[in-house]
């Protein structure tokens, strides 16, 4: 777990009472129950990142030189195109 931050939150009385009861029966502090709830509703950054990169991993199948990148050749060809009529 990363560094813990102490903060103040405002809860409706009935929700607090439910949390207090859950805390007793689950033998967990209220702060832990709130953390677990927050983690459920927030996107899991690690999974999002994995999915983002997976979207493009091996997306194309280009064989030969066109499927590679050589910077000097790339810019030299571009220059030739620009210089020609």
């Amino acid at each position: 777990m990363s560094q813990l931050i102490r903060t103040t939150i405002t809860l409706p009385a009935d929700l607090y009472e439910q949390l207090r009861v859950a805390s007793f029966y689950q033998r967990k502090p209220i702060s832990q129950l709130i953390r677990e709830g927050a983690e459920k509703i927030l996107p899991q950054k690690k999974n999002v990142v994995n999915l983002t990169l997976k979207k493009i991993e091996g997306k194309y199948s280009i064989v030969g030189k066109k499927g590679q990148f050589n910077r000097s050749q790339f810019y030299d060809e571009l220059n030739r195109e620009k210089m020609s009529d």
Partner: protein
Amino acid sequence: MMNLTGKKCLIDTNILVAYINQSHSLHLTAKKLFQRIVKKEFKPVLSSQNLLELTAVLVHAFKISKQEAVKDVELFANDPLFEIIYPNVNVLNRFFDFMKGEVSIHTVDKFLISTALGNGVNIIITADKQFMKVKEIKTILLI
């Protein structure tokens, strides 16, 4: 590969192309590198030049529509894993110094290295051995 923990490393365009092209001879190597990126073993950096070049490769070599190409490049540009760096005045001055020097690499390679160094990045991960001629930047060659 050397221990890169916590270090900023510029990922060259040829590695990005290898990652997205399953027919590239370095595709599996690039995949392994990206697995290390996802595990946050080092801090990957992309320059605006890399993103420009990747867009151009997709449009002109892969023959992808401009709209589709931009969507692909945005996946890299918007991923919070990557830091994007840009040329600034400091970069331009370094580039002019490089041009006056003796190192025989392509002008655009000099600009890329200047962008990296000008933004505090002194490691490049590339498939291009030309960068090994430049002593100011540590080159990690993926071959």
